[in-house]
């Protein structure tokens, strides 16, 4: 490996605040649209279109947005489950060294895989049905060098206990478990290698409501116990409010607002955030919202509107919004908004917690 390339991967020379674990800058992921006999590229789906955010050590960042906004693609780019088109993902390794995840070759990713793990949305699809719990939870151990079978099964037993499952279940196959239990298995597998960062992609949205709370509590407990950092991807604002320290809101491939959770829910500064909040049906018949929903639909990322992507649905849009995309700016400490008119608007959030 040449000296230059090493330097470009180790971006230690540019400063990153010490509390930061991850710094994402201008992340882009375009998917080509192919058509015809020779599968020529006829367009691009701009699934993630210049996303910038950061994660502090030990916190939970909630990433919310509606389907197709690019939140899942973003989360998969972080782990290099898919390769981003461009951008920078700087990560502080356990040894303190900074690496740019986007520039690592696939064999250089392996040590990083131990530090970053993922929890998937559908616990039925993310467990190989042909492997029992020992093999499933033990696989990360096996492929990362824990060859001793006894050692492995001890560790798997510990992990199962940690997520609230009985170690005796080790020989069972996933089909013996309910959705909630399966999600616990997925969590146990993600924790097998003592990761520092866990990306959770809608981990409770496939679960029954009476089971959701169990898994959310488990995630909170584990974070405290193991000092984990979470990127929590979700479409359900209630869940995000419950679990996140900070929240980033995405719309058509871009982050429109990012701030500490309570600030975002109580005093949103982007019209889309406000609209999203007002659209959530409140579980109280005495607070029947007037429900003046947004007009229109979420635009397609293959053909997004000009300027601010939200302008066709925004009640406050001006000519400027139509022509120029606003930058994500820090308007208050830790509160980032991408809106030309954020200073003049005063938007309604949700009421105080009861």
């Amino acid at each position, binding site marked *: 490996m040449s000296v230059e390339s090493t330097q470009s991967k180790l971006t230690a020379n540019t400063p990153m605040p010490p509390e930061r674990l991850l710094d994402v800058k201008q992340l882009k992921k375009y998917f080509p649209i192919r058509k015809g006999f020779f599968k020529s590229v006829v367009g691009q789906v701009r699934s993630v279109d210049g996303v910038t955010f950061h994660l502090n050590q030990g916190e939970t960042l909630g990433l919310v947005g509606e389907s197709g906004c690019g939140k899942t693609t973003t989360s998969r780019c972080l782990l290099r*489950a898919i390769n981003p088109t461009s951008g920078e993902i700087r990560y502080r390794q356990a040894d303190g060294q900074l690496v740019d995840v986007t520039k690592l070759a696939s064999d250089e990713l392996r040590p990083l895989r131990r530090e970053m793990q*993922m929890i*998937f949305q559908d616990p039925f699809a993310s467990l190989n049905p042909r492997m029992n719990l020992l093999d499933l939870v033990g696989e*990360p151990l096996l492929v990362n060098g824990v060859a001793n079978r006894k050692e492995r099964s001890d560790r798997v037993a510990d992990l199962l206990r940690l997520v609230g499952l009985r170690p005796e279940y080790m020989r069972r196959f996933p*089909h013996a478990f*309910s959705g909630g239990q399966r999600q616990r298995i997925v969590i146990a597998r993600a924790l097998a290698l003592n990761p520092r960062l866990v990306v959770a992609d809608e981990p409770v949205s496939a679960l029954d409501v009476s089971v959701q709370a169990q898994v959310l509590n488990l995630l909170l407990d584990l974070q405290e116990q193991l000092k984990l950092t979470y990127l929590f991807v979700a479409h359900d604002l209630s869940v995000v409010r419950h679990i996140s320290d900070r929240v980033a809101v995405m719309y058509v491939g871009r982050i429109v607002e990012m701030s500490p959770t309570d600030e975002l829910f109580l005093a949103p500064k982007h019209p889309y955030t406000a609209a999203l909040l007002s659209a959530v049906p409140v579980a109280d018949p005495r607070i029947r919202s007037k429900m003046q929903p947004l007009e229109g639909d979420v635009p397609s990322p293959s053909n997004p509107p000009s300027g601010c992507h939200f302008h066709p649905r925004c009640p406050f849009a001006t000519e400027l919004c139509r022509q120029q995309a606003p930058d994500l700016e820090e308007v208050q400490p830790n509160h980032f908004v991408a809106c030309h008119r954020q200073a003049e608007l005063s938007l309604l959030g949700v009421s105080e917690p009861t």
Partner: protein
Amino acid sequence: MTSQTTLSSEARENVKDEAFDVAPNWKLVWWRFKKHRLALVSAFVLFGIILIALFPDFFSIQDPNKSSARESFMPPQGISFFHDGSFQVHVKPLKGKRNPTTLKMEWGVDKKRILPLRFFTSGYEYEVFGLFKTDLHLFGIEKPSARNSFHLLGTDRLGRDQWSRLMHGTRVSLSIGLVAVGLSIFLGILLGGISGYYGGWPDLVIQRLIEILQSLPPIPIWMALTAALPRDWTVEQTYFAITLILSLLGWTTLGREVRGRFLSLREEDFVMAAKLSGCSQSRIIFRHMLPTFTSHIIATSTLAIPVMIINETFLSFLGLGLRPPAISWGVLLQEAQNLQSIALAPWLLLPGLAVIFTVLALNILGDGLRDAADPYS
């Protein structure tokens, strides 16, 4: 019912919960397959056919190539079980008389005598896989001769024993099916796998290749290719050339299927999870991806074997495939190619029944396997 309960509903019936909970995939498949009675019967029948294919000489009555002009076109002899009111398995000998006007042999039953049928009797000597020699046969009569002859399915033009030829044809026809499908599987998994797993330009090339091969009319191409085989090739050479030719067009279906599976599996969460756990590419392919569709490949292959068998039969029947002295079902049926031969000796069509029943059994088995193949669907 929801998706997680369908599996249970299939498998929970006979099994205690605990056994079900720890049941690996093949057990779930077996539990499901077991319920398909007809497929079970087919598997049993096929087992018998495979035994014949493995030891054709053991099941034969006489040397399949032994011809005798005096025994030409003898009709099948049935097996009787009672003689003079007592149980004795025997056959009735035939007596030939030449018709003075047509000069054809006419065969009638010689009512005076019986020929007792012996089991595990000794007959002509043969070699088993080149390992040892024996003369043991499943059944036969003692001291066969022109006067005392036994032909269960009659004889052909050259007076060769149809039954023994059928037994030997089974070996060739079945193995052609198996080898050709084996080659197809190899090509299909290799090319389909490359195409589906790696994508990009290899995928593009392979896909176009599959499309072009699939739009070729198979029978004329096979005919042209087999007709191009040199006449002086040995039986073995022709045999392998034909399996190669059959699988050349046959792998595309499987290739497509494998490609589709890889494509969809690539997007599966559990494959991504394996990748993120740090699994190597080969581990992902062989531990996670291939096992999820091996049962499908087995089912599809089982359904592909009969197609190959029928195609070989077609080609040999037309005189383009295997040629005598090779014996296959198609070669046997070639004797019955025109109306004159059938009118004279309708029993020459009997090898066709072997084709039908084998294909039938393979199809039913394949369907049963396919239905049972995916307990997680």
